[in-house]
């Protein structure tokens, strides 16, 4: 089984983007439920769905994506099968990485999601090399590379090394910083003298746009513009998406360290609620349509979970497969 039995989301792109955000939310809520039932913990991106959907929807099949431990949104927005993702999280053979990755380093070369690193900043270290290969004609003609990371990674030294090299070598690379205000268990306020990461990018001579990361249409518009500029001149661009990590660093996490007022303020700006309201207001969808979409997403996640739970465990004698080429 795979998700191809489900019709691709149809209709106006704004409606598709809502459906993809709903899929990410439902998928991660299932991850939380599975964890409570004893499955391995995961890093969710609840509240950040607009970042993944807005940017990935501005890319096309020629492009490559590098992501990190909070990757479900990027993978699902790119068209990953939620059943194979869940199978990977559960450590089963049908996972994208044959159960070797778990949730933290899922890559899926077949959909262009390459070299996921859970070492904060690891994706930034590898992205210029992927973009260099693209620049030297090893990728698909016209393709670019997008790398997703957070404000935590921006505080790593490799962030500056990566930006500097991409500018100096003029690489076709889109840096996407999801500034979600949390760096594991420490608020960004405690770790940065500045409060905007885009300014650091500008210091490297890299044009940066700062966008409301909870507004999927604003993210999408900024990403489309940045991608078009990269395709036009081959040089890098930077997007800072201002958002908020609504759940803990890792499941389970009681978030006792989080200011409830701040959390509530961001919850009131939920990216899915904002898009739902926009669609209704602009008459791009009616309530019945939205209900049907939510039901379809729910069925898809049910089927994905059933598929993952039915997937076999890897055979122990395959333990050392894939270590060496």
């Amino acid at each position: 089984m795979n998700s191809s039995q489900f019709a691709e989301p149809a209709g106006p792109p704004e409606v598709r983007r809502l459906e993809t955000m709903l899929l990410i939310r439902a998928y991660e809520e299932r991850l939380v439920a599975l964890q409570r039932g004893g499955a391995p913990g995961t890093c969710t991106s609840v509240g950040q769905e607009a970042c993944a959907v807005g940017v990935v929807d501005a890319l096309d099949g020629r492009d490559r994506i590098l992501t990190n431990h909070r990757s479900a949104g990027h993978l699902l927005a790119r068209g990953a099968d939620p059943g194979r993702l869940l199978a990977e999280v559960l450590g089963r053979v049908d996972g994208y990485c044959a159960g070797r990755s778990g949730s933290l380093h899922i890559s899926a070369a077949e959909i262009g999601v390459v070299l996921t690193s859970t070492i904060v900043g690891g994706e930034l270290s590898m992205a210029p090399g992927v973009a260099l290969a693209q620049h030297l004609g090893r990728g698909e003609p016209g393709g670019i590379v997008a790398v997703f990371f957070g404000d935590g990674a921006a505080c790593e030294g490799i962030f500056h090394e990566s930006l500097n090299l991409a500018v100096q070598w003029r690489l076709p690379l889109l840096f996407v910083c999801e500034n979600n205000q949390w760096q594991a268990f420490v608020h960004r306020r405690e770790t940065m003298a500045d409060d905007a990461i885009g300014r650091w990018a500008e210091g490297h001579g890299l044009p940066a746009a700062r966008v409301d990361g909870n507004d999927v249409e604003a993210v999408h518009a900024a990403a489309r513009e940045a991608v078009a500029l990269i395709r036009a001149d081959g040089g890098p661009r930077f997007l800072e998406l201002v958002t908020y990590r609504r759940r803990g660093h890792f499941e389970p996490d009681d978030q006792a360290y989080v200011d409830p007022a701040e959390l509530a303020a961001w919850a009131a700006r939920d990216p899915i609620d904002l898009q739902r309201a926009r669609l209704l207001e602009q008459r791009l969808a009616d309530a019945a349509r939205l209900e049907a979409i939510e039901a379809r997403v729910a069925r898809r996640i049910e089927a994905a979970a059933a598929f993952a739970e039915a997937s076999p465990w890897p055979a122990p004698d395959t333990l050392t497969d894939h270590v060496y080429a």
Partner: protein
Amino acid sequence: MSTTRLTLEQALHLALHQALRRDPDVLLLGEGVATKHRDWVAEFGAERVRNTPLAEAIIAGTAVGAAASGLRPVIDLLFAPFMAYAMDALVNSAGKLRYLSGGQFSFPLVALGMSGSGWGLGAQHNHNLEAMLVHAPGLKVVMPSEPADCIGLLRSAVADDNPIIFLMDIGLLQREGDVPDDPNHAVPLGRAAVRRSGDDLTLVTYGKTVGVCLDAAAALADRGISAEVIDLRTLKPLDEAAVLGSVRRTGRLIAVHEASGLCGLAAELAALAATRAFDALRAPVVRLTGPDAPAAASWVLEQAAVPTPEAVVEAAAALF
């Protein structure tokens, strides 16, 4: 077969030049590679021979990303201790992401580093950290002892689809040797070389201490002790068959290297003999290694840390 006399450093440059010429996917990246090889920039283009910032983490990370995307980068990290800055890319990315991705990606890259005593540089340039790298899954580790092997091993390393750490012993860089003129000369990875045959004792070593052991073997011959000298050449994968075959025949093993002893290659060789050739051993296995101390800059202190032919002879004589 015709040969040419080259130093190890000249051999390395010849090997890099051949690699760039042989395969358009090969890149050379590093601090100063374009400065030092203007002629290669002219021949292969500035896209393929690139100076980098003096920033090992991004040099190595870029190589990892490029290697997974259809290129075969060779990176010059200069001195082996500088690899400490590149460890995330080498160990966490290149060494692990093939496995963690279920085999979706390969990382055909070579990271060059110099190490070892001889220049009095002190421990932040002279650190034989090869065992750390051997311990990292997914990496292969190579350390030639002579110019011909440098060319042959680099050729195999560049052609290999795994990430390879290629270490050059500082003390050997200006040492000359005969190098085959055949541009197809290759030495397979994972294959040790017997540098001197013997029947009474096996000396297993690599890099600069191959010469130390050969000097010791010559001195031992004068005492009527026939010592075999095995040059590992590749530290991982380790040529276990070559070591075991020799030890089973001689019954005695001395493992010698400049790197410190604790959990080093010599410890692994001792374990190999103890677990798989115990019945053939006629004497305890001996390790002669550097101390658990950073390398000093002072010539006298630097050299005091290095195994000498005299120490090998003394240790060998005690086994009979």
